[in-house]
């Protein structure tokens, strides 16, 4: 079966500072990114700010323009739609953003927000709409009386449930989750993660799960993609990428992710203190060669001149872009 979503060599540019003379700076936010999302599965996209992870999500949603490559959803190239994506596509792909307060209209009740989504996509009577609102609120663990509430009357976790309910209301097949738990407290974060997993089982949903925390991404994803300065540096099954990261950047990311276990954390601290302490380069001015070479302990001459190809590695189902992948692997084992 073909994947639900295929992203092929996607590139996205942002044009900054356009002056009256039309001269501007072009930021390559995403370069040559390819991955697929299977039905009922989660692809976790992890990277730091400026890595282009949110831009990829926005491109799939039609909120950012494709500069190169293709995004194919269920056999349809969404680049062919033009500026206005058709309603039929809107029904299939929905979004949950990071900040639930700004992603909900502050002047509308929860019921109005969800009701709008329902009426736009299904021809329902007033009564049926009310029933659907209650059903979808129930599926995210909210009570029917909360339909009367305004966003400011809810807690952060409840707001995020509402945002998920709004996405679910149109019965989509793919939900782009753009840092959906980053703004939440630990206990609420785990509630929302469990909810997303439950909903995936119940409705056979696929997720593109975008986050900066590798532990969270590992927990929810079947496949992980690691993004650095707009390029994928590593992809593979979640357990194997997390268990034995192949790319030096993934290793750095894992070593920098903090765990609440003093012993395990001490080991991670030791690993991260072996990493070079450098700042990430500006996305406006990426270094020549491998974009990670300025921060990489393994960087050799070839890394500073030539872009590494994104190739299959020795392990099953995994790809990485690193000239020295073999040396890194032998050193690790």
């Amino acid at each position, binding site marked *: 079966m073909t994947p639900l979503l295929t992203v092929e060599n996607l590139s996205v540019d942002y044009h900054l500072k356009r002056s009256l003379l039309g001269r501007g700076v072009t930021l390559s936010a995403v370069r040559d990114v390819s991955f697929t999302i299977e039905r009922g599965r989660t692809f976790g996209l992890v990277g730091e700010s400026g890595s282009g992870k949110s831009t990829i999500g926005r491109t799939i949603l039609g909120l950012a323009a494709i500069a190169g490559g293709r995004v194919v959803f269920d056999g349809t190239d969404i680049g062919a739609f033009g500026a206005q994506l058709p309603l039929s596509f809107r029904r299939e792909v929905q979004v949950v953003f990071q900040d639930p307060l700004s992603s909900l209209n502050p002047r509308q009740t929860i019921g109005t927000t969800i009701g709008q989504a329902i009426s736009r996509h299904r021809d329902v009577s007033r009564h049926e709409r009310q029933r659907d609102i209650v059903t979808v609120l129930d599926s995210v663990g909210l009570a029917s009386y909360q339909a009367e509430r305004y966003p400011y009357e809810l807690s952060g976790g409840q707001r995020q449930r509402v945002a998920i309910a709004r996405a679910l209301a149109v019965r989509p097949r793919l939900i782009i989750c753009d840092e959906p738990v980053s703004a939440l407290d630990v206990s609420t974060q*785990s509630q929302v993660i469990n909810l997303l997993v439950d909903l995936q089982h119940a409705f056979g949903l696929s997720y593109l799960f975008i986050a900066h925390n590798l532990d969270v991404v590992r927990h929810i994803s079947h496949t992980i993609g690691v993004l650095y300065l707009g390029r994928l540096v590593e992809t593979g099954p979640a357990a194997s990428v997390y268990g034995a990261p192949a790319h030096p950047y993934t290793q750095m990311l894992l070593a920098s992710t903090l765990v609440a276990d003093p012993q395990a954390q001490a080991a991670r601290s030791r690993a991260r203190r072996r990493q070079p302490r450098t700042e990430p380069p500006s996305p406006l001015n990426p270094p020549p060669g491998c974009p990670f070479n300025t921060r990489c302990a393994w960087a050799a001459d070839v890394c500073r001149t030539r872009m590494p190809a994104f190739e299959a590695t020795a392990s099953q189902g995994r790809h990485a872009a690193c000239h020295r992948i073999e040396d890194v692997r032998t050193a690790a084992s």
Partner: protein
Amino acid sequence: MAATITEDDESRAHTRLWQRLAQRPLALACIGYLLLLLAVAIAAPYIAPYDPLHPDIKSRLQGPGAAHWFGTDDLGRDTLSRLIFGARTAVLASLESVTFGVVVGVSIGLIVGYLGGWFDRIAMRVADVMQSIPAVLLALALIGVLGKGLANAMLAVGVIFSVSFLRITRAVVLAEKEQLYVDAARVLGLRTLSILLRQILPNIAAPLIVQASIALGTALLIEAMLSFLGVGIDSTQVSWGAMLETARQFQTQQPLLPIFPGLAITLSVLAFNLLGDTLRDVLLPTGATAPGNTERHVVPPQPVSTPPSSRTDTDALLQVSNLTVTAPRPGGGMAELLSDVSVHVMRGETLGLVGESGCGKSMTASAIMGLLPPAVHIAGGSIRLAGTELIGLSDDALRHVRGRRIGMVFQEPMAALSPVHTVGRQISDAVRAHTGLGRKQALARAAELLALVGVPDPHRRLQDYPHQFSGGMAQRVVIAGALACEPELLIADEPTTALDVTIQAQVLDLLMDLRQRLSMSVLLITHDLGVVADACDRVAVMYGGEVVETGSVRATFSRPRHPYTAALLAAMPRGEGIGTALATIPGRVPPAWAWPQGCRFHPRCAHATPSCRQAPSVLQDGVRCRRAGELNLAEAR
């Protein structure tokens, strides 16, 4: 399916607009006056005692009397009746021009603001040209073309108004369309018109309503001015402006004539403007808070000499004992934001203060710094820094402690730095404020500090502005500023929350390294248990304004004794896959005015018994749980 969360209904914190207006007598007076004006304008033919146009030469230029309450004018027309009909003209003319301005300006502003691109550029250039033409001049020109008449004149005023409404609308739409809810609406496939009218318009209405109120006043004034000049109304209409013109001619014979129309114009314009100002305060976020909440409680706090419940460590640099902080609760009474908080930081030690938002972590830090918000005050307890009591110190003495003995680092480095001053200036100012060093020496010291916190090329970077630094480097600059006077204690409130993970790790390493090199103590406030595990020696876990567990990080995290600590630890994903559900804590942290009776954690606790509901738990042997002895929480993980 997920279980329905049962949560206590919270009182609706936001009050309705009219309730907020009702607290302002001046606003009510304005609204009352304007409603009266509107009623008079509508009912003019029924309530006016005379025909305003009917001359009565016999009783010309009379003063106020029984027959004519406000007197008569040069043709013997009744002033009161003319005022009443004048109100009708004024209201009609103002409404005409402002309605035209709002409808045209807001519609175009919404469209060009939302669509942007060429529409926007063309519309804005046209607006620039229009705005350079004075309203009255355009009105006179339009009258010249379309013919005399108030309707034409006010239409011209409306055109000018539409430009200012266009500008305001466009500006607020530009900001509002970046909001994620607009993106969400686009992803839902809502129609552009629906996004504009149902999503964006209600959210930008506040500044437009304010502007409309002020524009009504302006329009009323312009109508009076045009009529005074004789280009507005025709002979069948009555206007306050025209009445003033008559009064001007006959002032020597009847000096009372200008009083009434003058008063009517002044009061009406004033009412519109005052209402606009009040609406601005009430509707727009920068407005002052409701009266009553703003005054600072100057109850002189005194250290309460109750015996501290935790061991008093004489070696502790910072000793907070039984600290209780209160604030007025909505609806009267006081709420305890912090209750009986006792923590200490030893010399050279890093204490992690951890908990979810709303548990009192930052409030504890603010109390230590003496930087509590207005209306929040210390009700009891003691805060000692190296033996010196900080509660009750004068502002001057506290300022000396802050910065000199205690340094502070916040979450948002960019917000902590002034964008218009160079980094060198900001750090050297901090140095000079506390050391009395000269300018040159202070700058040299600033460069040393930047080098200390690992900013490369420090001498050159002194000349840079904060925006030229990345987030991680900016946080290093803030830390450098906090270290300016070699404080004994550094309070870091979520110092790495806004940073990327790799940079977070670097900043934590820096803090640990500095602590060692400068033999400082660090109080690290965070919601991230991973940060505590990485950087802290000891930890104090807070819940509901209380310390619920404290101990060494190693012991506390490997053998948590309080159910809340255990639940927090269990909720962190730890590398298991999608098959395993994460442990959760049901519900959420209640607000400070609704702490539960008994143990504050009991409604969310998996181990609660009826006795937990009845009496509060006390902090004993580093844990605030009556069942601590019998529970084996390490197993549960």
